[in-house]
């Protein structure tokens, strides 16, 4: 069997698994965010926190919940890292420097999981397990909560109430993420992912004798438990520096496919839940079809460019295997690279910087679309719904009638919130990239020169502002400039869009639904899927084309 055919079969197997799993999970998610009852463990949690889970919140209150919880997360994670040197269970690692601790705390709270540190050389058991892994759960749950609030904005009318943030947060953790992660973690251990709390220890090597080392130094870790939620919550922060390329995180071709499945599972299940909650499953499938079309198209493009391996070093080598593992090959690595950048995951099983020029460009364009196909857990759905609002607005302009979506009028107020939400990340990416290129010192962090060096910086800000977390990792991002500016990009790129999403939700929920007429755009039809995909690609394309032309396009066309 040729590697290309094997790659395509892996893709088909993945699609089949997701097609099967999204049905029960989509139904479950819709029930979780519509349920009026509380489980016993949830009641204990609400009592411990001291909140009333049944109090309905308007959008400002919901937003305050999101913000205070996230501020608490940043503070806690920052302190934990700053105190690492005196905490037990830290493997003798020192405390993290202030700028890096800020960057890492923000990174994990915003579901970005950008890492300017080497996991195996910096973070001990306590910070990994009780700090970083916790944010893997709760930042994903926050994303789902905001998505649920926006969906309620469409589903409800004549009220400003969007649900209760604390209930949405706790249910996302207790009813969705923890049970799925527990099963997934055990599957990963069965596949060879490690799960222990041993310290740094010597393990013998095959060749022994003077000067050959004779042993490797290993650190243990609760890797499987973190790996499961790292993928499931589209977080992507590796326990080790090599992330999902590390054999202890992703040992076999099966675990590779399983990790792909985990990262796409919730994002591809949420549209069904959305359809159920707004009372029309077909509306959900129109969104799902848009996501799936873009994703499959990107995978096909990536496989084509990686299998053709253009670029001097790859042509001499006879294949694009630099930065890729033998067990995954080019097929498995290509599917992973696309999926991780079209979701907000950012985990890597191969290193994007060594992909072909165009392949690197595809990973960047995936993030630049806003990570909505299928996008991060929660953030993908609300991002795509914002684009749907923009798409019906464009269609409304074409035919000259007030646009509406799901029975809600998209007036001046709504379109302003939607437009602000989608303008934030491009502004952050382009302004900060320009600043880094204009200043004298940030350029010293580049490993490669020319177009690829520019791509390293563009990739970094694209990844941070879109909360992805992957990197053209040649960039030495552990400098005060990058730790600080990337940290700010992550914060603003996560929470400013949420402000506008919740404001939009509040505005929609107050409306009285307008009845559908013969002139209403049928947003559950394939025509709308095409329109939406077109709007997504054109808006991102127009925004980023000049920047892409200077980086990956220049590199790809030169080879």
């Amino acid at each position: 069997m040729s590697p290309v055919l094997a790659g395509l079969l892996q893709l088909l197997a993945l699609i089949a698994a997701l097609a099967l799993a999204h049905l029960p999970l989509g139904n479950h998610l819709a029930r979780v965010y519509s349920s009026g009852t509380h489980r016993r463990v949830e009641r204990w949690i609400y009592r411990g926190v001291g909140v009333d889970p049944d109090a309905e919140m308007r959008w400002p209150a919901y937003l305050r919940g999101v913000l205070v919880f996230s501020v608490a997360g940043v503070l806690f994670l920052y302190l934990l890292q700053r105190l690492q040197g005196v905490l037990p269970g830290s493997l003798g690692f020192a405390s993290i420097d202030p700028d890096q601790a800020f960057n890492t705390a923000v990174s994990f709270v915003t579901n970005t999981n950008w890492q300017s540190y080497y996991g195996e050389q910096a973070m001990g058991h306590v910070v990994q397990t009780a700090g970083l892994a916790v944010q893997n759960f709760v930042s994903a749950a926050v994303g789902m909560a905001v998505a649920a609030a926006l969906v309620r904005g469409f589903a409800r009318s004549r009220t400003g109430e969007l649900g209760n943030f604390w209930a949405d947060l706790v249910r996302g953790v207790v009813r969705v993420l923890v049970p799925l992660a527990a099963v997934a973690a055990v599957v990963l251990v069965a596949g060879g992912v490690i799960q222990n709390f041993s310290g740094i220890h010597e393990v013998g090597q095959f060749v022994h004798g003077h000067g050959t080392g004779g042993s490797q130094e290993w650190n243990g870790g609760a890797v499987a438990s973190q790996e499961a939620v790292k993928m499931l919550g589209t977080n992507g922060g590796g326990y080790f520096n090599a992330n999902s390329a590390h054999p202890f995180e992703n040992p076999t071709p099966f675990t590779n496919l399983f990790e792909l499945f985990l990262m796409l599972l919730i994002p591809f299940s949420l549209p069904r839940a959305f359809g159920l909650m707004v009372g029309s499953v077909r509306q959900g499938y129109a969104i799902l079809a848009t996501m799936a079309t873009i994703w499959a198209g990107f995978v096909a493009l990536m496989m084509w460019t990686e299998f053709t391996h253009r670029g001097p070093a790859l042509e001499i080598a006879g294949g694009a295997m630099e930065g890729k593992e033998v067990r995954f090959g080019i097929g498995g690595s290509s599917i992973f690279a696309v999926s991780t950048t079209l979701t907000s995951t950012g985990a890597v099983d191969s290193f994007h910087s060594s992909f072909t020029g165009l392949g690197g460009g595809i990973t960047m364009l995936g993030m630049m679309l806003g990570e909505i196909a299928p996008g991060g857990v929660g953030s993908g759905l609300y991002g795509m719904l914002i684009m749907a609002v923009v798409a019906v607005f464009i269609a409304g302009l074409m035919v000259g009638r007030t646009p509406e979506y799901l029975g809600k009028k998209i007036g001046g107020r709504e379109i302003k919130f939607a437009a602000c939400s989608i303008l934030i990340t491009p502004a952050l990416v382009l302004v900060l990239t320009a600043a880094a290129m204009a200043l004298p010192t940030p350029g010293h962090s580049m490993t490669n020169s020319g177009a690829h060096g520019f791509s390293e910086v563009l990739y970094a800000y694209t990844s941070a502002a879109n909360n992805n977390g992957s990197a053209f990792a040649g960039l030495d991002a552990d400098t005060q400039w990058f730790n600080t500016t990337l940290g700010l990009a992550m914060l603003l790129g996560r929470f400013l869009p949420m402000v506008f999403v919740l404001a939009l939700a509040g505005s929609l929920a107050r409306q009285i639904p307008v009845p559908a007429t013969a002139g209403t755009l049928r947003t559950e039809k394939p025509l709308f899927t095409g329109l939406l995909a077109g709007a997504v690609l054109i808006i991102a394309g127009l925004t980023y084309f000049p920047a892409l032309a200077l980086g990956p396009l220049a590199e790809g066309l030169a080879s």
Partner: protein
Amino acid sequence: MNISVPHTARLLGAGLRALLVLTLVTGVLYPLLITGLAQGLFPGRANGSKTEANGRVVGSALIGQSYNLPLKEGQQTPEPDLKWFQGRPQNGLGANSVNTQYDLILSGATNRSADNAELVQWVRDAKAAVIRDNSVGGYTVKPSDVPADAVTSSGSGLDPDISPAYADLQVHRIAERNGLPVGHVHHLVDEHTEGRTLGFLGEPRVNVLELNIALERLVTEH
């Protein structure tokens, strides 16, 4: 919006309490439960899939290692010990590192782009070395025979595998250096070639550590 100081403080208190309670659930109970299950059900795998040979742990079946000669006086980089099968090239990880009191396994890639002059040189050098080292006796390696994985470094820098093509290419050298018949070594490689999982997952591969353990056994028996 109510933004008075006591109100904000009360809210922040709720945020902190929520974080602490959820930390207890997801950062303490959950990892302990998974560790218990992992250690109970799959202790070998949960602890790194250690592999033994001659009653001694010789590494992990999952982690690649180097098969080098001892360092000579004044030598900076060791030379490969050509009587063993060699894995993929292990080029630099970059000089920056955060916390250096332990010399741990450091995983990572070169992150060099396809048009990077250094990478082009590394690939050229690696190709020349593969051809030189493996052209023995009457057997000559053609540049077009050298597979991509033999001249590029992996994503983790710890790739335990090589392609069957790269293993086959080393057979004549291994046979000569160890005084074994070529057919026996070929057979050994075939035995240790793992196909795609279920016929379509991943790529065919040979685990270098397991192959070398079997080779050592073959040498002692011979």
